[in-house]
Every structure is written in C-alpha cells, then in structure tokens.
C-alpha cells in the first residue's frame, strides 16, 4: 500500500491547482467578462512582475530563508534602468544591464550577511529592505522617471494571437519559469538547493559547499528582481520609486499558496506560478465583481493564513 502512495502528488501540490480551478469557476459564474482569452491574458500581464519576483522568492524560501527586500530591490532596479537611460543617455541595453547588476549586488549583500555573518535572512532582508528603499528615494529624489526610450518598453508591447493580445513580458516570465523549473529538477546545483533547505548540516557533511549554494541563490534571486524591474518599467512606461511595495509581500503569498514550505527544502516553481495566478485571479475577479480593492487585500490575507496552516499541518504529520 505504502509504495503506491508516493507516486500520487502530495496534497501540497494538488491543493493549489484545485484552489485555482475553484476560484476560476466561481468568478466565471459571477462575471460574464471573466472567462475570456483577453481577460486571462490581462491576468497574466498583471501578474508578470510579481511572477518573476516570486521565482527568486521561491529559490530563497527553498533554502529555508525568506526575502523581504525583493520588491525594494526591484524598485531600485527600475530607477537605475530608467535614470541611466535618460539622465546618462546610456543605450537601453546597457542601462538594463546596469539595473541587473545592481539588483544582483543587493542579492550579494543579502547572501553575504546570511552566510558570513550568520544572521537570519528575515532580519537581514528586513534591514536591506529599508536601506534599499531609502537609496531608491534618495537617488530618484522620490520623482518618477519619465520620457523613456521605446526600447525599454518592448516587453510591455503586445502581439495578437487570434482574438487575444499577448504581452511579450508574460512570455519572458513563462520562459523563466520553465528555465528555473528545469534547473531545480534536473541539475546538480538545483538539487543542492533542496538539500541545503532540507538538512543544511547533512548537505555540508556530504561535501556540498552550502555557503556557496546560498550565495548563488541570493544573487540569482537578485538578478531575477532586476528582470522584474525591466518588466515593471515596460508595463508602466515609467521608472517608479514607489513601486514594489505590494509585490514585496505578494511574492511570499504566491510562494506559500503554491505549496512551497516555509521550513525549506520542499516546493516547486510550478506551484509558485499557480500561487501567482491564484492571487491574480482573485484580484481580477473581485475587481470585475466590483468589490472594493480593500476586500481583495483582506481575501489575500485569509488565503495566506490558510496556506501556511496547511503547510504546518502536513509538515507535522510527515
């Protein structure tokens, strides 16, 4: 009996799928506009920034940490990209590269404090969240950066597929999910991330350089926040120093809703994508129903607590 059980997907990966389906069905009955390719494309487009941030967040939570600075790193990245392109007149590609480098550096600082100084990631990123936010405000003068070159907005452009217009940025997001999914499943460094999150001491004793794994994870996550910055700039058409504030916690919400354990070592990016879509579907569906946005926040909060409680429950049982 027992040997059959492990072949079924665990509750934690089936639950989010069911939740997403139920939510989609519910909103289909509530609004005639919900169930359409155009609306689904819109949900994806609204989710692409938090979706890419949530990939980085997943990697960090898989190691048993958490990143509270992700949204702020993204905001700094978008200011760097837009200001370097406008103020310094850098070619857009170079400006984007600078943004990616700066976000990766934020990850490097987080990783160094976690591995070298041995501080809990919660505290480290709580600190860098505030520091990075302040730097963003100081550097931008709390002003939105406008008059961007068209090239910076490429990923906000759409192409038509039948009746539906699809944003290039959503394709980039989905491509990143596929890439990281493959990396986590099929490569040795990917499996080492799970090992570190599962049992750090055991991983170290088997010869895995656990500190190096953690450094790489924090830097890769930072790089992904940089990509999210590019998507945010493309979507809004400006560099906004106030951006990233909802994405900061929404990314954690999505990861947890997707069935990744806050204890580390268990979870998938496919789950996170579903978590991102759950948040997106709720936001979109409640908007279509005309529910005030404050209730959307309330519902997201309830969902998170439900998801964490499920995680706690299954973890204790196992």
């Amino acid at each position, binding site marked *: 009996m027992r040997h059959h059980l*492990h072949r079924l997907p665990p509750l934690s990966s089936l639950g989010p799928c069911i939740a997403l389906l139920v939510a989609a069905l519910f909103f289909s009955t509530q609004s005639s506009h919900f169930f359409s390719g155009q609306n689904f494309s819109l949900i994806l487009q609204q989710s692409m920034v938090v979706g890419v941030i949530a990939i980085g967040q997943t990697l960090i939570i898989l190691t048993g940490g958490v990143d509270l600075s992700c949204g702020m790193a993204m905001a700094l990245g978008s200011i760097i990209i837009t200001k370097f392109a406008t103020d310094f007149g850098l070619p857009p590609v170079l400006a984007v590269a600078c943004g990616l480098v700066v976000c990766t550096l934020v990850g490097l600082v987080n990783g160094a404090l976690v591995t070298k100084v041995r501080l809990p990631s919660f505290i480290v990123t709580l600190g860098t969240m505030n520091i990075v936010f302040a730097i963003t405000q100081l550097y931008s003068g709390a002003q939105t950066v406008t008059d961007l070159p068209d090239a910076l907005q490429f990923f906000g452009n759409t192409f038509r597929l039948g009746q539906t217009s699809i944003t290039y940025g959503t394709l980039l997001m989905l491509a990143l999910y596929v890439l990281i999914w493959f990396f986590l499943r099929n490569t040795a460094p990917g*499996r080492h991330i799970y090992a570190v999150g*599962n*049992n750090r*001491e*055991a991983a170290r*004793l*088997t010869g895995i350089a656990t500190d190096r794994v953690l450094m790489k994870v924090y830097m890769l996550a930072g790089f992904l926040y940089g990509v999210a910055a590019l998507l945010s700039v493309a979507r809004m058409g400006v560099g906004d120093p106030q951006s990233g504030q909802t994405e900061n916690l929404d990314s954690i919400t999505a990861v947890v809703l997707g069935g990744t354990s806050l204890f580390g*070592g268990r979870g998938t990016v496919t789950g996170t994508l579903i978590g991102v879509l759950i948040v997106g579907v709720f936001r979109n569906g409640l908007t279509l129903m005309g529910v005030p946005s404050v209730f959307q926040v309330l519902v997201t909060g309830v969902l998170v607590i439900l998801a964490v409680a499920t995680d706690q429950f299954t973890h204790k049982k196992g």
Partner: protein
Amino acid sequence: MTAPISDTIFQAYGLVKRYGHVTALDGADFELRAGEILAVIGDNGAGKSSLIKALSGAVIPDEGRMLLDGKAVHFHSPIDARTHGIETVYQDLAVAPAMTIAENLFLGREILKSGLLGRCFKIIDKKKMLSEAIRHMQDLKIGIRSMSQAVETLSGGQRQGVAVARSTAFAKHVVILDEPTAALGVKEGNMVLELIRRVRDRGLSVILISHNMPHVFEIADRIHIQRLGKRVAVVNPKNISMSDTVAVMTGAKNPEDLPEDAHA
C-alpha cells in the same frame, strides 16, 4: 611504538585534544586492521567521540599523528577524510528527508550526463543514478521497493540502511558508524547489524561506535576500550566476557589482570 603491522590500514598515535581545561584525548592510540569490524567502546567522557571525530576529520587533534595505509595524513574537515576514502555515518542520520533515496545516495556526488550537457550545465543523469542505486542497494540486500520514494517515507532502520549504503558506495578504505542501532527496535537493529557484516565482507574496514554491548559482541572482530582519554586495551570478544569488558571500561578491573588470550 610498534612497527606498523602489514595488515593495519588506519592508525593513530598519541592523539591529544583539549577543550579549555578538559582533556578529551590524552595520548590515545588507535589501530584498525584491514577488513575487520572494530568496535570502540567507552564510558561517557572517555574520549570516544573525540577520537572518532579526529579520525573522521570533524575535529583537528592538538597533538599526535595518523597514518592511513602507512602514509601520514592530516584531516582538516570531514570532506578531507572523505577524499581519503574514509566515510562516516553520523548518529543523527544525515539525510535530506524530502529527497528520494537515489538522490540521497548520490547527494553531493551526483552522476552527471555525459558530454556537454553534464559538464557545462551540470545536468544529472537520473536514470543512471536510479539504476546504480538499485544495484547498490541490492548488493547490500537492503529491501526497499522504490529508489524514487522520499527518505521520510522509510522506517528508522531503512533510513539507517540508506545512510550506510551511501557511505559504502563511496568509501575506499574505512566506514565509521556512530551508534547505528541506537534508535532502532530489535528487528531493525538486527537488520542493520547484518548490513554492517556485509559491508565488511565487501572488504571495507568498519569502525563501530556503540553503547549496545550485545550488538558489539555479536559483530565486532576486536573491541577497542577507551578510558580517560586513552586506549586501555583491545580485546577479543571471543575470549572475554561481557562483564569483564565492562569492568575494564569502567575502571573496575585492570586490563593487565585479564588472561593473555583476552587481548587482541
């Protein structure tokens, strides 16, 4: 100092380890012969675990020297010891519970795909890892149905089996087992003892640390008795009683009073 006997594979002389005012190892000697199961016993505070940690690279001794296969070695980390062919199975079951058996067996030493895919992208060869895991576990007669099930679905004895199997898969010389039967029931304990015998029969030398005297007497070829930071005797379990052994271990009996043939 005696000249190394030809079949001695791993030895240590005059190991000293101090922690502040506490002297855990006070000039301890150690000798392991090729293809034997050597049990290491001692009361709490006898320096048993410090000795094992020094041998496995987890602790760097303050003084003394170690020889592996006749050559001097200095271990700075467990990984150092491992690259010399000494594998340790830790008491607290150093496994990653949510990962599969096959993954745990190859953790940190994954089999990569041949060619560019393996070298550049470090893509693992799951099929090969699975078949190697099955072959290895069958060699050791560990009866687990599926290598792709998570380690946390296994019983304590099976988990210990996975940990032992991992160490033997990669050990070239020595396997160190720290209390491998401690948390197990009778049946599972016997299963692990049987496994340890098979490991020895494959030509590896085994160092077994255990508090369980019946288990020690059942499978050890020789017993190293550690007391007050030193080796006080090495006895032959076939020619000494369990109570005499415990008496030497606790200091109630002087090892010189033992009959000649009790020493090994």
